[in-house]
Structures are given as structure tokens and as C-alpha cells.
């Protein structure tokens, strides 16, 4: 097990290295000059050149890359081109809302989707199954921002039960925090619920036809126990996998959801940074998101052995 973890950790290095090289090259290939944008309205060519120099953009691409990599290895992601702040502190400011939104969305999605999927599989072919499956196809088809606007209209404007926008940190009180997260999390979880419910149903259907389920039933165990203790446990591997894969989807959804609900999280930071051509920030945010994705999928692999005793590394 330990050697497996070590091997998997080693395998993430080339992946992250590729991401770093790719993002770096992509930004350097763009036709726009961030120095000209920073220099502003009245700058002349000399001023732009001076800014290029101060940002280190006048150096050859290769040495720019090695300087940047060297900094990263020391845990330094550089300073934002625009705000006189380090990228690390910019990210630290923004990570709270995004983390909260992602966590609440995950909890909400799993607690809704797994029972729905189990139910649909248990009642395969009935109207319950059809409704769940129908909802899940719908969930894939309606864009996140449309769902967001519908929810805002219904619950924040039509009846003012919930705030229309913004984010309050946990330090402002649990109630305030969760009130501001309900609508965004519901918006973001629609597609996630659709994904997990589908996978749960499919995986359960397969397991329910297996011998040991029949055996358990024959032994007179309650349906509840059969479903959740025997079947779900054995169906868990694909479900957990899809939750892991879905992290990328969650990150993508966060960008849109934060924009709809004016939440100053990492998603909005990314869009702002891209529009402003703030290279250090774009690089750091994309690296961070990719790292999260890789680590979560590593964790997913590890949980396999916990969920399914047959898998050993």
C-alpha cells in the first residue's frame, strides 16, 4: 500500500510538469502584451518597454520559465502584475468562498443523488426510475447560468427568502454563511446530482443481479439492509470514481456560478486574471486547480481498497 501511494505520487510529477509547461507556453504565445495593458492610457513605447523589463518579460522565454519554476519550488508564485500583492495572498483571499461552495455542493449532491440512484435502480422501470433518469438528462442539458437565474428569480426576488448574491465567511456566523451558499450550491449541484444519480443507478443495477444479493435476500435480511449494506457497498467503486472525475466539472461550474452570484472566489479571480492577462495569477490558479484535480483522483484510487476488499495494491 505504502509503495503504491509513493508510486502514484511520483506519477503526478510528470503530469503537473506538463501542466506547468503547457500553461506557460500558452500564455507566452498570445498576441497581447500585458505590459501595454498595465502601462495604461497615455503610455509611450519607452514606458511600455520599461514595464516589460520590470516584469521580466524582456528575457528569453526559456530563462523566464526557469526563473518561474525556481520560484515555485520555493513556494513562491510571484507577484500579480496588477495588484501590488503576491499571488499567494490573492489566492488565500479567494479560496474560502470557493472551498465553501464546493464542499456544500458536494455534500448536497451526494446526499441527494445516491439515495435517488439507489431508489431508481430498486424500482427499475417504474415511474420513479423514469423521473430520476429524466431529471438526470435534463440536468446535463440546462446551462448552469440559466438554472442560477431561475433560482434567483424564484427564491431571492419573488419571495425574499434568501440573499441574491454575495458570500459571508464562516466567521460571520454559520447561519449567514449557509444562507448565502444555499442558492449557489443548489445551482451548481444540479449537474452533479444528475451525474452521480445515473452512475449510482447503473452500478446498483449490476450489483442487484449478483448472487450474494440474492443470498442476502434469501437469508431474510430487510430490503433496507440488502440495499444499503450489501449492494451499495459493492456498487461504490464506480460511484466514487465518478465523484472524483466530477471534480473537474465542479471547478468549471464554480467559475460560472461565482459569476452569476457575485461571489469573489477563485473562479472569478481566474476570469478577471485572464481578461487582464495577469500571467502569474493565471499560471498559479490553473496549476492549483489541476493539482486539486490530480490529488482528489489519487484519493479516489486509494478509497477503492477501503470500499472493495477485493482490490489490493
Amino acid at each position, binding site marked *: 500500500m505504502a509503495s503504491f501511494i509513493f508510486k502514484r505520487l511520483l506519477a503526478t510529477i*510528470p*503530469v*503537473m*510538469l*506538463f*501542466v506547468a509547461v*503547457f*500553461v506557460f507556453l*500558452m*500564455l507566452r504565445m*498570445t*498576441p*497581447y502584451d500585458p505590459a501595454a495593458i498595465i502601462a495604461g492610457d497615455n503610455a509611450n513605447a519607452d514606458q511600455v518597454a520599461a514595464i516589460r523589463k520590470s516584469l521580466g518579460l524582456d528575457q528569453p522565454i526559456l530563462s523566464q520559465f526557469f526563473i518561474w519554476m525556481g520560484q515555485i519550488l520555493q513556494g513562491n508564485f510571484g507577484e500579480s502584475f496588477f495588484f501590488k500583492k503576491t499571488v499567494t495572498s490573492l489566492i488565500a483571499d479567494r479560496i474560502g468562498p470557493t472551498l465553501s461552495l464546493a464542499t456544500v455542493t458536494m455534500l448536497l449532491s451526494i446526499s441527494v443523488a445516491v439515495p435517488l440512484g439507489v431508489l431508481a435502480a430498486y424500482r427499475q422501470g417504474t415511474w420513479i426510475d423514469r423521473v430520476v433518469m429524466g431529471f438526470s*438528462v*435534463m440536468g*446535463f*442539458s*440546462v*446551462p*448552469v*447560468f*440559466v438554472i442560477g*437565474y431561475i433560482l434567483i*428569480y424564484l427564491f431571492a*426576488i419573488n419571495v425574499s427568502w434568501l440573499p441574491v448574491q454575495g458570500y459571508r465567511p464562516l466567521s460571520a456566523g454559520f447561519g449567514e454563511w449557509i444562507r448565502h451558499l444555499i442558492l449557489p450550491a443548489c445551482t451548481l449541484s444540479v*449537474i452533479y446530482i444528475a*451525474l452521480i444519480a*445515473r*452512475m449510482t443507478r*447503473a*452500478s446498483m*443495477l*449490476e450489483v442487484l443481479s449478483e448472487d450474494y444479493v440474492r443470498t442476502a435476500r434469501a437469508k431474510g435480511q430487510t430490503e433496507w439492509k440488502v440495499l444499503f449494506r450489501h449492494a451499495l457497498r459493492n456498487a461504490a*467503486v*464506480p460511484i466514487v*470514481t*465518478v465523484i472524483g*472525475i*466530477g471534480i*473537474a*466539472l465542479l*471547478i*468549471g*461550474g464554480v*467559475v*460560472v456560478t461565482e*459569476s452569476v452570484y457575485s461571489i469573489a472566489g477563485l473562479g472569478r479571480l*481566474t*476570469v478577471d486574471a*485572464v*481578461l487582464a*492577462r495577469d500571467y502569474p495569477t*493565471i499560471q498559479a*490558479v*490553473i496549476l492549483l*486547480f*489541476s493539482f486539486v*484535480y*490530480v490529488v482528489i483522483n489519487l484519493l479516489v484510487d486509494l478509497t477503492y481498497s477501503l470500499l472493495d476488499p477485493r482490490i489490493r495494491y
Partner: protein
Amino acid sequence: MSAQTNPSTAAATVVADQRIENAKPSTWRRVRRNPSVLFGGTVLLIMALIAIFAPFLGTRSPTDIAPVARNKVPGFERTVTGPDGKEQTLVYRFGSDSLGRDVYSRTIYGARVSIIVGITVAFLSVTIGLFIGLISGYFRWLDPIIMRIMDGLMAIPAILLAIALVSLFRAGLGAVIVAITLPEIPRVVRLVRSVVLSVREEPYVEAAVTVGTPTPTLIWRHILPNTIAPLIVQGTFICASAILVEAILSFLGIGIPPETPTWGNIMAEGRNVFRLYSHSILYPGIFLALTVLAVNILGDGLRDTLDPKMAKRV
């Protein structure tokens, strides 16, 4: 939002060892009779016809502006004098936007961009992914290199990658298509590679290798046919997600130039006033959701009939 979110793709990643049967003669009939394929295909066909015949569906130029007729509700009528001196009544079936453009015409023309983006992205990512996947699956020494690159590309969340690509280069239809295609490729590569790996182990393929069948023939005759069914299914889901991603990029204001009628652009234009005039979000939203829904249902149906092994998993 991206293809990876579609259940079939997820399943493809999970079930790397699955084997796909050769398409049998009766397959086509099964496909035709599947209700999901029928429904999805019909809706999609209608959308395609709308796109092709947009100029004949009572539309006007989708880019013609009329500052005096801005933000009008659906059903608004306006009388203008044409260049020939005749009076003419213009009806705004779906209302007008903040430049007085006809939302109905824009929505109808918007079908063109969505369908072009969906089909082009699906075709490109499947073709490129197939090519890379075959190479990776067949040439063992190249495999680790290609797969590390694909892992890396897959680790960057698709939407972020598309946002970065589109907004850093000059926005336009081409840039949008490239930006949506690139993140889809690794997922196709993985699918193709898993098919190749499993087919290679088949006794009849091993036999073919022993008798000295040249590699191109081997790929052409034995491996390629096995990839067709899962790729058609996969391509359908990519098409659905591409249409959605295009709308999201336009909505965030970094996609195809706003003058071009696309469903995402119409909604982006209307988002600021949706409390007062909801028609700019409503109508294109319905068209968009209906189209994506149809493509997804079509994909489900195709998977059930073409690729039963995979269908069993999901």
C-alpha cells in the same frame, strides 16, 4: 459541462477493459426502432432544418439594429417605411434586445452557430483522438509519453482551459472551436486506447500478427471497426457538451463576438435586464436546453443499441 461529465465517458474511463462487439447487421434496425434515438434524432433534425432554412422562417437580418425599438416585449409591432416607399409592419415575436434587434431572428439564426460548433467539435475531437489513440495503443514505446501528455491535458479543468485559450487569442468561431476541442481529445484517446488494448489480446488478432499481417492492415481490418460504435456514442455526447460550453463562453463575454447571433450571446446580452425583460434569456434558453437535451437523449439511445456492454454499466 464537459464531456467528462457525461456518464458514458465516465463509464469509459472506469471500464477500461471492456470489449466491444462488432456491429451486427441487425444493429441498424435496432437503432432505428429505439425510442430515444427517434425522439432525439427528430428534435435534432428539426433544429438542423431551422438552422439551414433560417432566412425563410420569417426572420429579418439578425444584426439589424433599431435604437427606437429597444427592449420591447414579445409581440411588439413597428411600422417602417421601406426603401421602396411602402409601409411595412415589423413584428417582434420574441421581443427585441437593447439594440432593437429582433430576438426571434437572432434565436433562429443562433441555431446555426450552435449546431456548427457541436458537430465540428465532435468530429474534430473524435478524429484527432482516434488517430492519437490508435498510435498510442499500437506503438507500445510511444504509449507512456502520449498518455502522460493526455493526463496532463485532462488535469486542467476543461472550462478553465477553454476560457484561457479563447480569451488569450482573438475571439471568433475558429478559436472557440479549437478551445472546446482541445480538452475533449484526451478523453477520446483514452477510449480508443482501451479498445485497442483489449482487441490486441484477442486470439484472432494475435493469430493475424503471427502470420505477418502488416500493421496498417491490422489496424484497418481488426481494430478500427471495433472503435466505431463507442466513438459514435462518445461523439454525440461531445456534441452536446460543446454546444453548452460555447454558450457558457459567450455568456461570460469571451466567446464568439457579441454581434454574431448565438444563443449564449443573446442570453449574455439579456442577463443584465432579465428582471425587466426575461425574453432574451427565456427563448434562447429553451432552444439551447431543448437541443442539448435532444443530443443527450440521442446519445443514450445510440449507446443502448450500438454499445450494449457500455449501456449495461450506465
